[in-house]
């Protein structure tokens, strides 16, 4: 049997390693657009305070994964899933243009969600959704520091990632203003009392937190970029952190059922029984998309067991929690995940 996995994030790699350990005879090929190896996404938001981050973020190199018996096609993109002959079409560094699969696992994750009013200004802001994004941000920041300028940042979005990034930049000595549309921070995960505590922790660490902000758009002014609310404020750079958007395009083109994510049943199976989806691209029958590490690893390990014939019962979500990596912040109440 040939199992192909698309994506080298926590879902794809956890699945590949577990399936390898269950099944010595089957061929496993993981196809990824990444070149840097298997890295830790949670560490992206510690990307400014840790100097050695570009190395230390790598959990496993692709060569290490290859040595464990997993074929890795890196720097490659899947351009189409052909369900009729069970192949995927590939472009990129790999020699093969088409590969046959018996089982396909889509673990493409998500990109940053950009609210429609911001889309015309994509040249003017950064996102922090991948190691490539982080490297670009670090390079920009270093450029300013080398001119003895401490960067002035605007973070748009006070959810989990926005708060973490604001905290890490301020912790690293930069000037940070955080714009949030709602009347309290991280309102999806925290109770009001903890939002208020988080507000104080961020303010005390030097982040200027602005709530109830209606950000209408951005503008370029010489070497500054401006955030337009009722007033216009200048910054060196902007980071938009307004949530995530599952990468469903391939599945959609292949005619699989798609909602916010790729629709799967309790067996992580899409509307095609030989194609599965895992991680934050997969939408369960209850409408949920799991975007945290513990449930994603649980899905991946479960699916490896299921395809290897060791698991009969369907996947059930484990009890889990998370924690925002904001320097000096400890919530008093459990997170709503």
């Amino acid at each position, binding site marked *: 049997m040939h199992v192909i996995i698309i994506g080298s994030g926590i879902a794809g790699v956890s699945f590949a390693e577990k399936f390898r350990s269950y099944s010595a005879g089957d061929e496993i090929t993981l196809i990824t657009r990444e070149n840097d190896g298997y890295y830790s996404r949670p*560490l992206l938001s510690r990307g400014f305070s840790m100097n050695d981050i570009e190395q230390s973020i790598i959990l496993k190199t692709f060569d290490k994964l290859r040595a464990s018996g997993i074929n890795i096609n890196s720097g490659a993109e899947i351009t189409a899933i052909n369900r009729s002959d069970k192949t995927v079409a590939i472009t990129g560094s790999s020699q093969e243009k088409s590969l046959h699969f018996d089982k396909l696992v889509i673990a493409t994750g998500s990109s940053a969600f950009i609210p429609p009013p911001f889309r015309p200004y994509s040249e003017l802001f950064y996102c922090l959704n991948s190691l490539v994004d982080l490297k670009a941000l670090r390079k920009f920041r270093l450029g300013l520091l080398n001119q003895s300028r401490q960067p002035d940042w605007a973070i748009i979005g006070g959810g989990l990632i926005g708060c973490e990034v604001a905290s890490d930049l301020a912790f690293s000595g930069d000037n940070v203003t955080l714009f949030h549309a709602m009347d309290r921070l991280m309102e999806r995960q925290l109770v009001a009392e903890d939002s208020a505590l988080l507000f104080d922790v961020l303010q005390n660490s030097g982040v200027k937190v602005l709530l109830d902000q209606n950000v209408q758009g951005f503008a370029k002014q010489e070497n500054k970029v401006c955030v337009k609310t009722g007033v216009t404020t200048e910054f060196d750079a902007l980071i938009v952190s307004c949530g995530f958007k599952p990468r469903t395009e391939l599945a959609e083109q292949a005619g699989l059922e798609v909602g916010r994510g790729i629709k799967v049943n309790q067996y992580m199976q899409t509307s095609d029984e030989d194609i599965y989806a895992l991680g934050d691209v997969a939408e369960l029958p209850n409408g949920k998309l799991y975007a945290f590490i513990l449930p994603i*690893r649980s899905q991946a390990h479960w699916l490896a067991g299921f395809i290897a014939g060791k698991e009969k019962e369907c996947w059930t979500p484990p009890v889990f929690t998370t924690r925002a*990596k904001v320097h000096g912040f400890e919530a008093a109440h459990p997170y709503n995940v």
Partner: protein
Amino acid sequence: MSDYKKYQCGVCGHIYDEAEGDEETGIAPGTRWEDIPDDWRCPECGVEKSEYSLMV
């Protein structure tokens, strides 16, 4: 010994059990939490040792 403790990563839920150590990152069974080097990282999500807390 029965007084081995467990610590859990707050970010991903990984559990470090002193009794078992962590083979993959070269931590021998029986290694106490305080004896793990400060630059040790969560083997599953890569975050720092400070993100762990004692399980009660």
